[in-house]
């Protein structure tokens, strides 16, 4: 993929220069090659290929994700492993009481977000908190709390390498349509939609930043900027603030619908969480 001709109103803010990203690199983590390029699924209208955000990062940032010791996100997986076995709540249960080993949750991340038994669309954080409040009778964790980020990182890791594959039909369809509409809706004072950057201009530079497709297969992500793990909804919030819009709340129905649509745009890409980004 070459730096492409700039075609939208973003042009004034876009600069073709420095990015030392190696877009031809293969992501090999601990000997396993992850899928970072896949043919675009049929429901994604304006892309021919879907690309992991990893491809858009610099050599140094890319390298951090190829080794599970060098990846600073993994220490938070270690913390979640400790929590996994800790009894919490009135029911006297730990995660391990029902799920035994975390590996029993392999594949879960690929299907998130997912419609629950009551027909509501839930993100992984919602499922974790349902376990905590219903089964463990413990306090729910806040969306962006360290405990929640650690746990979603641990659960995501169990699916690492498996392709994203969310359901978008049946009871999920209306949520998916909602998310899709949001993706193409312009928000905020800068009057920009997700698509303006991540569909029309991926591969281009926005100031010194190399625009990716905005794929979410790597979440929760260890961002160098955050110096820690962050959720998908935190990134959405950041994007909305950048375009000077009033962001939706983390955990809101809006963000969860958008998450479903974005997850479906990444169908076929490997789960990478916890990935490393700039």
């Amino acid at each position, binding site marked *: 993929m070459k730096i492409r001709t700039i075609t939208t109103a973003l042009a*004034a803010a876009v600069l073709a220069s420095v990015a030392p990203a190696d877009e031809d690199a293969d992501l090999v983590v601990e000997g396993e090659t992850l899928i970072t390029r896949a043919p675009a699924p049929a429901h994604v209208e304006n892309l021919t290929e879907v690309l992991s955000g990893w491809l858009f990062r*610099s050599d140094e940032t890319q390298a951090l994700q190829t080794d599970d010791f060098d990846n600073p996100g993994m220490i938070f997986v270690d913390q979640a492993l400790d929590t996994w076995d800790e009894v919490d709540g009135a029911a006297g249960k730990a995660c391990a009481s029902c799920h035994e080993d975390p590996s029993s949750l392999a594949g879960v991340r690929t299907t998130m977000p997912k419609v629950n038994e009551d027909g509501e669309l839930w993100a992984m954080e919602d499922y974790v908190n349902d376990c905590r409040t219903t089964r463990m009778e413990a306090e729910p964790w806040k969306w962006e709390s360290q405990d929640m980020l650690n746990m979603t990182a641990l659960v995501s890791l169990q699916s690492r390498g498996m392709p994203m594959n969310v359901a978008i039909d049946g009871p999920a369809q209306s949520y998916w349509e909602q998310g899709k509409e949001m993706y193409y809706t312009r928000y905020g004072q800068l009057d920009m939609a997700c698509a303006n*950057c991540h569909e029309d201009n991926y591969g281009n530079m926005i*100031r*010194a930043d190399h*625009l990716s497709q905005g794929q979410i297969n790597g979440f929760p992500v260890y*961002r*160098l900027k955050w*110096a820690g793990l962050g959720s998908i909804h935190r990134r959405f919030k950041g994007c909305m603030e950048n375009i000077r819009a009033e962001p939706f709340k983390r955990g809101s129905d809006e963000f969860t619908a958008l998450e479903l649509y974005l997850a479906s745009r990444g169908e076929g890409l490997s789960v990478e969480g916890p990935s490393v980004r700039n």
Partner: protein
Amino acid sequence: MTITRRKTLLLGAGAALALSVPFGVAQAATVDEAIATFTGGAEATEGGISISAPEIAENGNTVPISVTAEGAASVMILATGNPNAEVATFNFGPLAGSRTASTRIRLAQTQEVVAVAKMEDGSFRRANATVKVTIGGCGG
């Protein structure tokens, strides 16, 4: 995100240059003082020490660096453009398998990273590396 005046101006002008604002930069004197304290005033010569760092750091929060100085007893790292120049000092003990160490550092802006080695023979060596720190378009 708070919209600073600078950001507003940049956006308004559609400017894309990674302009840097010299805020809280360690004064040259402070850098020299830190080196002088480490060397006891002795001159540090070039050669015999290498520092590896990315030419361009995607985010200044986490910049991987590595230093090697065969025969060094200790190596001090300085970030000349940070509010405080001192970054870390590595002391190699009797069981050190080499005189190489790597870490990840913060760089407030584009700047020179300096490594000064105190050699086992009492001499001092230094090396510099320039790291460009980009200002991202999408802080998020």
